[in-house]
């Protein structure tokens, strides 16, 4: 049995440091940060800012995956919430816009959770439904056009800053803090790890596994809706065809890089966010290096492979074996 000991995240943090260092090599001004018009600028800030949507998605995705599930619909939910936010932005006040967009995310999450927890449909199939249909719903909302808006309130969520820190970063940090408080501040984290690790045993120990399953999909929907709002606010419009396209895969990747197993159980919220930053740091690095952007995907695959190998217990055992063979002999 390959039992994993509590992880400390050396592999992930090491990988992030390595990529940031590589970025610094290809672009010596990578770590330069300057204050301009009351807002911080610089490549590092850019990594955080552009990484915020995937980081938001990974906050929900990590809980879903810890429950042995998967949520393929988050990209489509981003498109829906973005479309709603952009359509309402110029005619309604910000609280109404946010409530409507987040409410849509909540409903999407409830739908996924209902299919998985109540009807017992396999998560990958259940969320595939909304992954496909969601983008269609978003197009219906925008009536097939790219909806633009001018409302400065909503635009602030994408391009503004709080104490110099770009708003998307602030929102992602706030959501991270909220998720940590809800999950690790209560016994929910233990219950999710137990239910994901052994659902039958957990149900017999009195854990309401069904309700928790529903809750993690709702949370994933909410996180996706917030990511969608940020993405729409950033470009001052909603493009139902492309908003959040394929980002569900980046979010899953972020969670897996963060060391959470697709078989459920143990998870780390913070390392999932680190995973999201690793992905964005790579994207930014390739842009800075002047390599053709097409290489991005290949480089990404290589780095992902490296991080996964670094976590693999089996590889660890083999390396230990090599050390025994070639290392200094004990007397």
């Amino acid at each position, binding site marked *: *049995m390959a*039992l*994993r*000991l*509590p992880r400390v995240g050396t592999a992930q943090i090491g990988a992030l440091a390595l990529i940031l260092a590589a970025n610094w090599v290809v672009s010596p001004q990578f770590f330069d940060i300057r204050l301009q018009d009351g807002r911080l600028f610089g490549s590092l800030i850019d990594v955080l800012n552009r990484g915020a949507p995937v980081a938001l998605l990974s906050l929900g995705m990590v809980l879903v995956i810890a429950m042995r599930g998967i949520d393929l619909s988050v990209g489509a939910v981003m498109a829906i919430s973005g479309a709603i936010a952009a359509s309402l932005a110029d005619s309604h006040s910000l609280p109404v816009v946010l409530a409507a967009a987040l409410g849509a995310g909540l409903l999407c999450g409830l739908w996924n959770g209902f299919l998985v927890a109540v009807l017992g449909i396999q998560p990958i199939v259940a969320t595939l439904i909304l992954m496909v249909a969601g983008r269609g719903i978003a197009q219906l909302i925008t009536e097939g056009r790219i909806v633009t808006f001018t409302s400065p309130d909503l635009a602030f969520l994408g391009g503004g800053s709080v104490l110099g820190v770009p708003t998307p970063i602030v929102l992602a940090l706030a959501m991270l803090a909220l998720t940590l408080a809800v999950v690790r*501040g*209560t*016994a*929910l984290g*233990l*219950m999710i*790890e*137990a239910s994901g*690790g*052994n659902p*039958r*045993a*957990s*149900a*017999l*120990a*009195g*854990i*309401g596994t069904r309700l*928790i399953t529903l809750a993690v999909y709702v949370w994933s929907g909410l996180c996706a809706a917030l990511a969608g709002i940020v993405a729409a606010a950033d470009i001052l419009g909603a493009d139902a065809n492309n908003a959040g396209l394929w980002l569900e895969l980046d979010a899953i990747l972020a969670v897996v890089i963060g060391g959470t197993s697709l078989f459920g*159980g*143990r998870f780390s919220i913070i390392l999932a966010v680190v995973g999201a930053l690793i992905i964005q740091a790579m994207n930014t690095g390739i842009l800075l290096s002047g390599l053709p952007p097409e290489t991005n995907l290949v480089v990404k695959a290589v780095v992902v492979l490296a991080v996964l190998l670094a976590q693999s217990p089996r590889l660890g055992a083999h390396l230990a074996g090599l050390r025994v063979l070639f290392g200094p002999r004990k007397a």
Partner: protein
Amino acid sequence: MPLTDDAPLLSLAGFSKSFAGFVALDRVDFTLRAGEIHALLGENGAGKSTLIKTMTGVVTRDAGTMRLNGAEIAPRSAEEAVKAGIATVYQEVNLAPNLSVAQNLFLGRQPTRFGLVREREMRRRAAALLTEFGLAIDVSSPLESYSVAIQHIVAIARAVDQSARVLILDEPTASLDAHEVEVLFAVLRQLQARGIGIVFVTHFLDQVYAICDRITVLRNGRLAGTAPIADLPRLDLVRLMLGRELSEATAKRPPHVESAARTPVATFAAFGKEGQVAPFDLTLRAGHVVGLAGLLGSGRTETVRLVFGAEKADCGTAEVDGRRVAIGSPREAMRLRFGYCPEERKTEGIVADLTVRENIVLALQAQRGALAPLPRREQDEIAAKFIRLLDIRPPDPERPIGLLSGGNQQKALLARWLATSPRLLILDEPTRGIDVGAHAEIIALIRSLCAEGMALLVVSSELEEIVTYADEVIVLRDRAHVARLSGDAVDVPAILAAIADAPSAPAARHA
């Protein structure tokens, strides 16, 4: 029997293995002769599994040599071991349950013509092979449609047919009933006559004396002793395994208290579920142990699952403290302060990835709800208390529970429920698959819980054990409660008679 001093079939010398500083095997020697059945015994964690795994190459050993028929071999995987002539059959049969018996027998070595599998030829050969083992079954049916005993025999037949000269059986009888064990033993005797050497790992001492020729005992990773069966009476064997005298706990029974005098905790009337167990009446009292006896599949587990709400009853009533209650889920049962240690420890009990501490506090935390987390300090205290109280080893609350031995996992599961201070504790086969020492400790625990006024409902296949602690025994047959024995009527012959549906013989009643 060919048990002379002729050269051994298989000999191991100086086998050692440590895992991350923990010595699992320390210079163990072992010999197996052709045509002998050799029991490999020891408490959980004594090193039996490690010895088997290092023999078959599943785990690489640190030191040691192995000779088969005088030639040194060093298999590096289970397949290589099979090729060399050493086959292993595990407790959980490692075959494909959805494939047919014939396909399982010839998986990976199907008879082919022009690259196509010759189905009919395969079935014919499968039937012929099984006939040798006295099994006349339809080989085209899926393996899972047969009992565990037959699945075991199929696994053995497959192993032997792959030119095995050494057959290792790792607790093959753990989930078999008495008749199935006999069938399996007949097969083993036949293999023995063919000159195959058999290593037999088990927890059932009766079976050791029924079939084995020699015994090797391991203790704490070391060889504790090897002897022919005739030279090792049962008491000496237990002493060898434990390194100490087995406490009197398992032998004596405290005087029975008149049942009716005890306060009922829960009363079930005409309680049952279609297809699970026929409606039954059951009264559980404080300070009182009710045992459920019967063969596998007789409805014992089904009964306790209904009582705990893991299955929803479709008829009858339940009363707790004189009030009608509905028990529709484990959560509702827990609200009534019931607890349930299931039989399937791995799939329904432990959460292997989580630590011992997390596993222990799980039910208590579920009872409090997610919004009232147990402070870490309190969790540490609870874990430390039960690790001390139940002597859970190693005494490390932060170790993933999956790394513990079966007996210690069982203790941690008991701790999980004791932490919720239940009024009724349901134990399904609490001593299955765990070592003799832990057996005695768990029985002692059952008694002390009972003395403290807890109501207990215990399912057990170990009749000798059940009579030592049960105040009342209910016998099940064919998914129905068929007999109730209480007080001095509780004894092994009476239970056996009820199980076998024989007229209850006026057996010698012992106090």
